[in-house]
């Protein structure tokens, strides 16, 4: 398992490939890898976002992400998992979060990556402050559904 909080722009795919090469090279039982990458959009709730500050609770974040990864590992048959999360000043298109899980069968990887993302979204101590033409605003948590309604 590998968790990292990253304070500058990063290449999520390079990180993934490097981790796979260094830590999982000899795991020939891996049959499935499910990856989720979250990136910053330039529009939110109908307004153009120029940049965003990602704050977090440094003493809690990493241990909480470990707990989320642990829970998924216990529930599904997971060989390994990584969670990378950006903090600091973020620009549109920048990677924010990468979750990857490896398993023998696809079902476990799919479910684990999904559950890690849902838990991260609702529980991990990160907050987004967006910068728009009208100034700064804290992002409100929204379900996918309510976001869709806002945009309709």
């Amino acid at each position, binding site marked *: 398992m590998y968790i990292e909080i990253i304070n500058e722009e990063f290449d999520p795919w390079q990180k993934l490939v490097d981790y796979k090469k260094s830590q999982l090279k000899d795991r020939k039982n891996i049959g499935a890898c499910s990856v989720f990458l*979250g990136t910053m959009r330039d529009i939110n709730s109908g307004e153009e976002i120029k940049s965003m500050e*990602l*704050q*977090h*609770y440094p*003493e*809690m974040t990493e*241990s*909480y992400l470990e707990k989320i990864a642990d829970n998924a590992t216990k529930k599904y048959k997971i060989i390994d998992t990584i969670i990378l*999360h950006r903090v600091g000043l973020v620009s549109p298109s920048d990677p*924010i*979060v990468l979750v990857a899980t490896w398993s023998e069968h696809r079902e476990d990887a799919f479910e684990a990556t999904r559950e890690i*993302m849902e838990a*991260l*979204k*609702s*529980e*991990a*101590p*990160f*907050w*987004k*402050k967006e910068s728009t033409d009208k100034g700064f605003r*804290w*992002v*409100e*948590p929204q379900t996918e559904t309510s976001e869709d309604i806002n945009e309709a």
Partner: protein
Amino acid sequence: MIIVVKYFASISDAVGKTSEQIVLQHEMTVGEVWSDVSKNIKYTGKVMTAVNHEYVDDKHLLKNEDEVAFFPPVTGG
């Protein structure tokens, strides 16, 4: 009994600080501490509370040197 209280995001903005030390004269729950510290602020949203980096509910009883954190619903990912 002394505790450290941390504030994050919009709650930190509303309280006007990121952390403070508070001396408790008697045993208190985190809910009671929140009532005290939020008395004069304008924040009306939901509050999430962690003690020593674990989520707790309002009735959680504080111990000496606990680190209490108050923050709005999280928006990472």
